[in-house]
């Protein structure tokens, strides 16, 4: 079944590491299972009633034996856990130079927005050999972004950002599935990941250039929604300067400190006074309900674009 083989390819930098662990587990569990089954069959034959096997001195328990088969599996399990721990942490921490693409899920489609403002639905074009970080949210229920060939999956939640990263290592067209049950057309909520060479990708981006980059769209919103009215040096209200805020450590009024990542920015805009920046009054109005998920992403892209050193190219 060569079609199946197509689903099985390992097309991301993570895939081989996952597979290594997977096949190791298959081998380990396989041996153990085989051993147990063999023992069962062997005893069943040897000690069937009427066989003339020696049954003298049957022990009904033996502490050392019990301890042995308590300890050995325990040790093996811990070993496996530690191995999986390292792979897992790798899968969960995007490299610093990963470039961000935004995903908005809704019943029953995937909407993608590239930093350059290009939008696509149920397909995602990515360059090969470049670490890609997806920042994802949902407009309605929980969905799950699943690309078998990349061995990656992450639930996509409403009202929150989750992230996922991969680096494609093979050119081609790979299946995208929605893996969390989300209602009527859950089964149809699929798509394609199209991996291209960087030059082709660049050409594709130009081909689909949208009205200004995402950041540019954000800049417009930043004025139209009156953010600039407060967040500009000449504003009457004393509000923090948002330039180069992204990635900085923000000190909050309650003494704690947080990294200004996307989730933080999102909360700052939607639930401003859930936490207040040290040295400011909680004057910022909440914008929840006034901004669509996509507008939010644009704003955040804009705030990020004010950071020169950042890798997102606009």
């Amino acid at each position: 079944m060569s079609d199946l083989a197509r689903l099985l390819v390992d097309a991301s930098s993570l895939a081989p590491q996952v597979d290594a662990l997977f096949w190791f587990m298959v081998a380990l569990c396989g041996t153990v299972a085989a051993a147990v089954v063999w023992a069962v069959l062997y005893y069943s034959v040897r000690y069937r009633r009427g066989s003339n096997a020696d049954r003298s001195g049957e022990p009904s328990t033996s502490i050392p034996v019990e301890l042995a088969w308590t300890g050995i599996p325990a040790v093996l399990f811990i070993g496996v856990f530690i191995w999986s721990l390292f792979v897992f942490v790798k899968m969960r921490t995007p490299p610093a130079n990963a470039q961000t693409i935004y995903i908005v899920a809704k019943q029953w489609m995937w909407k993608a927005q590239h930093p350059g403002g290009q939008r696509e639905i149920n397909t995602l074009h990515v360059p090969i050999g470049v670490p890609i970080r997806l920042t994802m949210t949902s407009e309605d229920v929980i969905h799950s972004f699943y690309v078998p060939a990349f061995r990656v999956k992450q639930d996509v939640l409403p009202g929150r950002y989750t992230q996922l990263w991969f680096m494609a290592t093979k050119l081609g067209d790979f299946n995208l599935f929605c893996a969390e049950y989300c209602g009527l057309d859950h089964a149809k909520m699929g798509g394609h990941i199209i991996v291209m060479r960087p030059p082709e990708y660049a050409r594709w981006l130009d081909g689909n250039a949208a009205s200004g980059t995402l950041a540019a769209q954000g800049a417009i919103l930043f004025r139209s929604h009156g953010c600039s009215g407060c967040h500009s040096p000449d504003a009457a209200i004393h509000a923090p300067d948002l330039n180069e805020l992204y990635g900085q450590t923000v000190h909050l009024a309650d003494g704690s400190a947080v990294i200004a990542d996307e989730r933080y920015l999102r909360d700052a805009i939607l639930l401003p006074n859930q936490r207040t920046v040290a040295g400011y009054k909680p004057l910022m109005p909440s914008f929840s309900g006034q901004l669509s998920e996509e507008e939010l992403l644009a704003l955040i892209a804009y705030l990020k674009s004010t950071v020169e050193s950042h890798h997102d190219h606009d």
Partner: protein
Amino acid sequence: MTTIDAAFYREGGLRSWLTTHDHKRIAILYALGITFYFLLGGAAATMIRLNLVNPAGSLLSAETYNKTFTFHGVVMVWFFLIPSIPTTLGNFLLPLMIGARDVAFPRLNLASWYLYMAGGLFTVAALLAGGVDTGWTFYTPFSTMFSNTHVYLVVIGVFVTGFASILTGVNFIVTVHTLRMPGMTWFRLPLFVWTMYAVSLVMVLATPVLAMTLALIALERLAHLGIFDPALGGDPLLFQHLFWFYSHPAVYIMILPAMGVVSEIIPCFVRRRIFGYRFMTYSILAITVIGFMVWGHHMFVAGQSMYASLLFSILSFVVAVPSAIKVFNWTATLRKGAITFEAPMLYALGFIGLFMLGGLTGLMLAAPALDIPLTDTYFVVAHFHYVMVGGSVMAYLGGLHYWWPKITGRLYSESWARAAAILMFFGFNLTFFPQYVLGYEGMPRRYHSYLPDFQALNVLSSAGASILALAYLMPIAYLLWSLRAGQPAGNNPWNARGLEWQTSSPPPEENFRHQPVVREAYAYDEAAP
């Protein structure tokens, strides 16, 4: 000889059955309910498998399909498997095995049955009239804000049945503590009693959480409270935490009794004491307690913090160790025995193999790095059918065959029984092994239609399911037949050691004519009258 069962079960007629306080009759009432729900769930499974024969899923509409697997999951979990062993075999045998005249609260026992049936019929009605499309996990916000099906009714049904579980649990715990016969110390209890005790603890401590969580779902739909609703700043993951705090321990509600049954069957047909009795009891307790601390392994990709995931992961590995101990002990028990292979033994051996395979794949899922690609695919579906169907259901049927002579006083046709057991084993593997491969290939679960690439394996699986269906229907036939045509069983057809075999089959109202005495685990004599 005039068989006593006639006298025992015929007397009184329907009315006396519906008002009985006798744990043995209540057990039989439960058995009827269980079988009924199993057939319903099975019918749903049949539709699922038929629909998945071709990639387009052209048998059912997407909507119907979603309602079908929800129906299947809800009915099979809450109305078949969770009550199956405890309420039938447990109710019948627990008092017998500890030499008691009945459970501690017979009236409560009957009340539980009525709650169970009420809740069940309510749910089935709801599921048939319109149905529910949330999956048995009721994830929010889909179940609260988006699904416009009869979520209320089902939630209420499960809620009511939850009380049946809780009351049964209370009943068993008190029974074991207060009604053990003279000399029946804790470490002389049959392992089946141990598992009944453990499972009661889980029911009592976990079920309230489910009940209340479902109540919150109903409230959230009714009054738009926002506890789980992100639109209000509520948290959908909170629901998942609460749900799995019940539902992982619930899977041990399903497997512990099965382990108990197997631990009774094997020594009987090996004619040899169970190996490592004490370690078996310790591992039961370990599973019971640690089983409450691993629920997060259902949420590795749900958006749970990475550190929490790691904690839950390692605990999931830890909870697997006691299961390992049990598998090894059962195997060791075979050594130096004088083994015969009657039907119950075949089921027990089948259980060991299938549970082990299911458990080992559970181990893979417990490693987050592997769970990320495998979760919500058919790999998981295969995992839990191996443990639940290959494990628990096999053991339930094994136990049913093992104690059938005791319960009914009749012997069934041994050859038919063996045939069914073997057929079931192969049908099962044919059904669910392909699903492991499907899952690894990346076929997500709860899919009404799928990519053509997956068809071959799905057809295999459906073919297996039809064999399985046949294998499940066979026992219904020959067991019923045995009631009219079966040979009288006598007190102890297997010459087993359990106390329940010391009294007549079926046992008299008061269980024992003379108060028996226990000398050590599984060794009894009748005290002089």
